[in-house]
């Protein structure tokens, strides 16, 4: 993902991104797992917990594998002199492909569970909603991933943490106020 910054420190971006991507996936899961575990237990699905977790981990592995397999293509696009905007779009596209692959694995692994009990549908919905909700904020906090040309590489942005949803809400209300 990294590698666009032309400065002498540009090699730091790939290192940071290589650390931050697994951190984002792992930390998001850690946040969501206690609630998933407790809700599964109260809904009487504890006996299926192992199979459900296997489905979740498989989907995350698929996500990482697809993303890694697309890395040479990303590097190839960068090597062709992609602009910052093009790099953002490329990575957005790669993430979409990886997410679709992960979803397909998750649904395939979850299907036997869903036929066993309809309560698994609630748990699957809980997992997806909580994971996306926390994941978006985790990604926001761990940015920059790609790096902005002319800005020195850093692990975190040199500003206080902010909330992605509040920022988006501010942008939407600001745009509506202007129109």
């Amino acid at each position, binding site marked *: 993902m990294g590698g666009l910054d032309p400065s002498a420190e540009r090699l730091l971006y790939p290192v940071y991104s290589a650390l931050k991507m697994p951190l984002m996936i792992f930390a998001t899961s850690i946040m969501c797992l206690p*609630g998933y575990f407790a809700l599964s237990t109260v809904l009487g699905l504890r006996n299926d917990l192992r199979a459900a977790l296997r489905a979740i981990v498989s989907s995350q592995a698929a996500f990482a594998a697809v993303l890694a397999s697309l890395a040479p293509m990303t590097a190839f696009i960068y090597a062709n002199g992609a602009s910052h905007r093009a790099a953002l779009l490329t990575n957005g596209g790669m993430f979409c492909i990886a997410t679709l692959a992960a979803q397909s694995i998750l649904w395939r692994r979850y299907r036997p569970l869903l036929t066993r009990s309809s309560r698994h549908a609630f748990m699957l919905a809980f997992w997806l909603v909580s994971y996306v909700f926390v994941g978006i904020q985790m990604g926001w*906090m761990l940015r920059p991933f790609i790096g902005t040309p002319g800005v020195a590489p850093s692990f975190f942005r040199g500003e206080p943490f902010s909330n992605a949803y509040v920022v988006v809400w501010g942008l939407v209300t600001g745009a509506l106020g202007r129109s």
Partner: protein
Amino acid sequence: MTNVPFRAGAIVALDELLRGKLTDAKQVRMGMTPVRLFGPWALLLGATYGSFIAWYAIAGGAANAWWHLLYVMVKLPALFLLTLFVTFPSLYVFNALMGCGLGFRATLRLLVATIVVNLALAASLGPILAFFTVSTSSYTFIVLLNVALLGLAGMVSIAFLLRTLMKLQESEQTELDAAHGEAASRRSVTGMFFIWIITYALVGSQMGWLLRPFIGHPGQELTFLRPRSGSFVESVWNATAGQAKLQSVGR
């Protein structure tokens, strides 16, 4: 614990409660969810979620933030247990009048068990709250997130209570049918269930109002309790009426 037929540890007991292994009809009547075991669990789990709520004041660098942490760790379980203390007599009387067949202690044990399930679920969602608290200065966002997380925990624990009452009803019906030798008239627990939920929710919302602040508004001083003024219903009414007035002025 002498009357309790299991000797497992407290953690195993909590796990069995969450798995619904202590709330079959027979077990509810036998008292498999003793208050002396699950009461402390309610305190501990409530304090755990309360500590996550208080992170907002700590992350915001508010004065007395660490005292506020302690206050909320006391106040959150107090909110649930004091509400039960106030509502329990009426809940028990409704239960007796509607012929649900649960004794005084069995009713108390069942309701404490439901509170424990509610607080265990809330505590399990605490890491999500803590994570957002660290990165969010918006008070409104944190209030909405707390409402969503506590709402989810509340809904699932209400489903747990209803399921347990249904199991009790089925068991009683089977016993009645066997005693009469034919299908006896069916008793419904759902009416009593809704009375319980509405009573508990009304008293609980006012108790929450009395015990505020929990999150701690950045513009207000953090104290153990705010001065007594108004009520939860009154404040909601005023906010709604105020909003309606603003909209009519806007037109």
